[in-house]
């Protein structure tokens, strides 16, 4: 197992480098001059511009710029934005908001998605099962953007249950955005749990468990649920990585100062260093949680051995 993890970690390096270079290339390939844009209406003196260009390596070829960036990265220096603020500070400021949002979303996935899936799977073709099937189709079809507006309109403005923007009200601030962010995965978790459970209920080893005279509860919980939840748990694990990187729309609509909104604002204002820094972090999260899931798989399913 140790060797497997080491090998996997090694394999993540090219992906991490490739993804960050891809973003880096897109951000810095643009011919427009961000330095000039910085001055706005008040033109900067040519000397200042030259100095700034030198500082940000804007005169070098792309790969040299990237190499400079990497050198900094390995020393824990993600560079600074054009106003001289370290990118690391920006991340430290915004990341906690995104982490809280992702946690809220995962909580909803488990509490709503998992429970709905288990109940539907155990009572296949019941009324409740059909409700779950139809409502998950609906939820999957509603774009996050639309869902965000309508939860704001309904639960925020009309009913006044939850705040619709900002983070001033602690946990309550994260309820609506968390629900919106979780919606797609929540529906998927419900579907996955249902299918997996229904499939496992027909498995030969469940028949064996019944033939052994085990009480019904033991048959369902120990010999069906335990096996059925393996793919669900691993999906939720991998989804944490995706949630940490996929909150651009949610954070923007709900005005949450997390890394998603930050990266969007930075893309708009062409703050290359911030964009590359945050995206690299997002990619890291994604890869890291996928690795965690693979390890988790081996823990949950003894048939899987990585050596």
């Amino acid at each position, binding site marked *: 197992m140790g060797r497997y993890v080491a090998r996997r970690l090694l394999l993540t390096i090219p992906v991490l480098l*490739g*993804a960050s270079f891809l973003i880096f290339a897109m951000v810095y390939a643009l*011919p427009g001059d961000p330095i000039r844009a910085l001055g706005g209406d008040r033109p900067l003196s040519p000397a200042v511009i030259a100095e700034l260009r030198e500082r940000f390596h804007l005169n070098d070829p792309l790969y040299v710029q990237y190499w400079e960036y990497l050198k900094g990265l390995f020393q824990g220096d993600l560079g600074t934005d054009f106003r001289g603020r370290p990118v690391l500070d920006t991340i430290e400021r915004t990341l906690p908001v995104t982490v809280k949002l992702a946690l809220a979303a995962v909580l909803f996935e488990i509490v709503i998605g998992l429970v709905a899936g288990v109940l539907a799977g155990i009572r296949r073709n019941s009324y409740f099962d059909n409700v779950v099937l139809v409502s998950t189709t609906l939820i999957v079809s509603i774009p996050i953007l639309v869902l965000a*507006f*309508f939860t704001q309109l309904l639960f925020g403005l009309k009913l006044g249950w939850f705040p619709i923007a900002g983070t001033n009200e602690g946990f309550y601030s994260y309820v609506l955005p968390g629900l919106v962010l979780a919606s797609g995965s929540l529906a998927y978790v419900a579907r996955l749990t249902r*299918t997996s459970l229904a499939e496992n209920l027909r498995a030969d080893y469940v028949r064996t468990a019944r033939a052994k005279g085990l009480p019904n509860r033991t048959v369902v919980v120990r010999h069906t649920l335990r096996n059925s939840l393996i793919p669900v748990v691993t999906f939720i694990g991998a989804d944490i990585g995706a949630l940490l990187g996929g909150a651009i729309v949610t954070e923007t609509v709900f005005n949450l100062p997390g890394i998603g909104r930050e990266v969007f604002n930075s893309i708009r204002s062409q703050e290359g260093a911030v964009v590359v820094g945050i995206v690299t972090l*997002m990619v890291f999260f994604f890869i890291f949680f996928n690795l965690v899931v693979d390890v988790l798989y081996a823990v949950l399913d003894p048939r899987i051995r990585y050596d």
Partner: protein
Amino acid sequence: MTDQQQLDLRKDAVEAGTTTGLASPSVDVTKERQNSLWSDAWGDLRRNPLFWIGAVLGLFFLLMALVPQLFARGADPRACDLADSKARPSAQHWFGFDQQGCDYLANVVYGARNSLIIGVTAVLVILLLGVLVGAVAGYYGGVTDGILARIADIFYALPLILGALVLLRVGPSTGIPIINSRGPGAVAIALALFGWMTAMRLVRSQVIAVKSSDYVAAARAMGASSRRILVRHILPNAVAPVLVYATITIGVIIAAEATLTYLGVGLQRPAISWGLQIEAGQDSIRTAPHLVLFPSLILTLTVMAFVMMGDALRDALDPRQRA
């Protein structure tokens, strides 16, 4: 007794444990299997109400994209009168008027065209990339596969919206044709470029699975060429999962386009797009909620049409997924 009934019976018998699943002899049954797969699938689809809802909705919006005049109730989306600004829906004007006082129904109806153009174009590009790269990676394996899979990993690690967002933001200042246009083509290409990996993985895994099957070994033993094997025996097996994926993805892309446009990097005015309408409407969400409501509703229904068709297709083509 029809074939379908025989099949159901067999399935029921297997489920009830009344038959033992005997291994079937391995012969080249690609063509027959494909035929029965599709006719069984059609039998299933026909009885699935979700499929019919999806298909009718899909056809409705397709028609709306082709001939919007039929649905706009005679109104011209560009004929506006500021006096009507934000007027509520009425009997004459079902969806009311927007900020500029243009008939909103006409505007929402005319928005279908861009959404569908982008959805279909992007999916076509995705399929092209996915099938090409996936087939090559799966069939040749080894180093080729290693490199292509790694490249797919790189793209996979970047969220779809994020990648497209960056590309579209810098697009206009690059010299690349289409990408620098800020039109539907740019949006479609950007979304396809960051969305082809799943199709590639689907095709790749199908190719690997079929490649190692006995009937392909038999075809090879009889001297069929690599390309012939790939085209005649392997790719037809990948059609079913790819079709399911493509149908759902049209819906996903349409939602993504609206999002990108809403975020300001997709289509630009004076183009007519649901994303732009939602973006413009959000400021008056308290006073004129219909401005967000109608484009959102139509957008959702369009996405739903494709998701439902895709779901129904999956159930029909892969009975194991069905519980």
